[in-house]
């Protein structure tokens, strides 16, 4: 009997412990759910945003806003640190709680959204904006953009970047039009008496010379799909200025002769040994190190790499216009660049208890990001006209790019700016196949066409 009583008591205590644990979770959840509509009401009631900020300042209440953004290298750390410093002066009652963005294609953010735990402010790409629009988890910022004067500060060339497909503003972009640059090591070209290639025949000659001398012609970080897509795009734009953007929008088909020619050219260059043999398993650090150490003669990356490349190689580094099939195409192609801007930037969680204040802070941070990029990263290609000057002279490559900008007539997109996720996935993996040299141009075209059906 004693045993029965004891066993029943143990069972009951186990059940009670379990129920207590679950009960606590349930009550927490209930609180959150109860708070959600209240937060919405608060956010709605307190618009315009300025009122919210004033209220916070007036009450002296400390507000902590969570922010999910990149904080990995100088290009992301410097602007963030500067923005935090400036925020402390302009909004003494606001503190930021940084959640470092994971390089996981938005997986963390989507999981946070699915569980109702989105940060107050988050860095959103075009894909995320489109996804969160459908679930109403991204705030429409039209009013805030107007009241804070954000729209007036936007460069004319970047006006489109602020608006999503439905004509609303969901994120404050801080990057302007960006470009894929084909960097090269001037010292290595001079050492082997090579001219900067203008045509693919010139490029093939450079490949042969570099390979004979144990130099990797072009270091690619093909582990990242965007880099292989960019490598294809710099060739595709020589045949159709629309490049991968035209395919993404559906205004061109991958079976068009231009893209077939581009794929064939890339296959030929890969076979000649343009990229290192393990390009598809090389990451950014490895490829960059090869280029900066003089083990590779060329490198493909965005214009944001100018600062780092100049620091390491000084005057020995420059960028070239992408080579083309012949001299005429080369000259004509100087106006068509791979890359471009995208409707991505700082977005706000509409369910945040401080949504209105978060929107205002997001706009403020965006502006400070642009300032820091101009002043300390020597990158004038930002979304806003900040009126700031760099703390030292722009690097020669940036000056060259600035001089070229007025003549650029068309750009494409980086993969994070593509709107068709099926195409985005396909172009990243299929271009990687081409780079590996184990997939033919015909396979590339066939697989891409299949994916898009």
């Amino acid at each position, binding site marked *: 009997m004693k*045993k*029965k009583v004891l*066993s*029943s008591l143990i*069972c*009951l205590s*186990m*059940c009670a412990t*379990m129920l207590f644990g679950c009960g606590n979770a349930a009550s927490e959840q209930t609180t959150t759910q109860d708070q959600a509509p209240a937060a919405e009401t608060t956010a709605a009631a307190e618009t315009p945003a300025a009122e919210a900020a004033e209220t916070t300042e007036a009450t002296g209440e400390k507000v902590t806003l969570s922010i999910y953004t990149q904080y990995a290298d100088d290009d992301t750390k410097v602007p963030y640190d500067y923005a935090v410093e400036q925020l402390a002066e302009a909004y003494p009652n606001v503190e930021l709680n940084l959640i470092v963005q994971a390089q*996981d*294609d*938005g*997986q963390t953010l*989507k999981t946070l*959204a*699915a569980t109702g735990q989105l940060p107050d402010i988050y860095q959103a790409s075009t*894909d995320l904006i489109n*996804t*969160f629009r*459908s*679930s109403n*988890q991204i705030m429409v910022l039209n009013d805030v953009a107007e009241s804070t004067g954000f729209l007036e500060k936007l460069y004319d060339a970047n006006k489109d970047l602020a608006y999503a497909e439905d004509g609303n503003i969901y994120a404050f972009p801080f990057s302007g039009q960006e470009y894929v640059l084909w960097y090269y090591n001037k010292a290595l070209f001079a050492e082997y008496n090579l001219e900067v290639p203008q045509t693919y025949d010139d490029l093939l000659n450079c490949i042969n010379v570099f390979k004979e001398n144990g130099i990797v012609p072009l270091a690619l970080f*093909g*582990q990242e799909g965007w880099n292989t897509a960019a490598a294809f795009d710099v060739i595709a734009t020589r045949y159709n200025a629309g490049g991968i953007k035209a395919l993404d929008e559906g205004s061109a088909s991958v079976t068009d002769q231009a893209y077939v020619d581009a794929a064939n050219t890339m296959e030929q260059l890969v076979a000649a040994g343009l990229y*290192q*043999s*393990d*390009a*598809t*398993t*090389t990451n950014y650090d*490895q490829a960059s190190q090869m280029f900066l150490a003089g083990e590779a003669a060329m490198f493909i990356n965005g214009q944001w790499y100018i600062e780092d490349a100049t620091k390491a190689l000084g005057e020995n580094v420059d960028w070239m216009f992408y080579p083309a099939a012949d001299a005429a195409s080369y000259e004509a192609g100087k106006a068509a660049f791979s890359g471009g801007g995208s409707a991505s930037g700082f977005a706000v969680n509409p369910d945040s208890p401080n949504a209105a204040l978060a929107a205002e802070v997001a706009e403020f941070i965006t502006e400070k990001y642009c300032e820091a990029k101009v002043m300390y990263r020597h990158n004038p290609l930002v979304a806003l006209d900040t009126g700031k000057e760099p703390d030292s002279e722009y690097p020669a490559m940036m000056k060259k790019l600035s001089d070229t900008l007025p003549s650029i007539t068309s750009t494409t997109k980086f993969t994070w700016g593509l709107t068709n*996720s*099926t195409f*985005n*996935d396909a172009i990243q*993996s*299929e271009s*990687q*196949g081409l*780079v*590996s040299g*184990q*997939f033919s141009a015909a396979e590339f075209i066939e*697989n891409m066409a*299949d994916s898009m059906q």
Partner: protein
Amino acid sequence: MKKYMGNKLAIFLFILPALAIFLIFDFIPILQVFAYSFTQWNGLTTPTFTGLENYFRLFQDRVFVTSNKNQLIFAILITVYQMLFATIFAITISDAKMKGRKFLRVAYFIPVILSVTVVCQLWSAILSGQGLLNKLFEAFGSDYTQNWLGDRYKAIYVIAFVNAWQWMGYQFALIVAGIKSISTDYYEAARIDGCTNAGAHRHITIPLLAETYKFCLVISLTGGIKAFTEMNILTGGGPNKSTYTLTYMMYNAAFKKSEYGYGLAAATVMVLECMIVMLVINFIFRDKDQRKEEERSRRKRHAD
């Protein structure tokens, strides 16, 4: 004990917590996976029922064929490698006369306690284009340098080897424990009958480890079917998805393309494959009594 086992309420109450956890965290989510695989869903909004559309798409997807082929290669390779070497090593160190047994026992198990990420980074450094392995070939004047992780056909074998290398120690520990539980009387009797050491292991050790082998087979084969981490770290599924598995397809569809319905259709197929493998293993390892019972009922049916 008998009295206690007769208390149905106590049994139920003791089972309840584990049962509840299993139902809430395993069974119901699996049912949800099945249900959502018939929908178009981005993970955030209300799913739309689309019937078998995701499955039709999946079966026509060229990556589906590649993924299944990779899983098969991966599962077979790690099973053969792990069970073979784990058995050899376990039998070797079970010999009391062997020197350095303790050291070897620890050495074989060390990779198991390392994080998968650490192991993959280690092998990535060894197998990369300018890695240790290729450098060794060069040092010995051989031109057999390879793009180990970037080859569309060979990479899956290399990845499977990395997994097999890491987890062999786990099966080794199971088999060592199994060998220790076998009474030494059997071996003494065999020796008296003139049986050799190898013969004793063949006729005593291996048959008596049937249950251990069954467990090892289950974890190896299902582990192979579910493989993801090594591919993700070593090759990113590339080049051009040639090292994809169904788990990778699910991950890519759900988290990169926001096509949760399609991803969950891949997950459903993977769950079914794991279940089929389990059923086959259970069928192969039926115990003798069960087989006799089946035989008896079959005869009875024929007699009727």
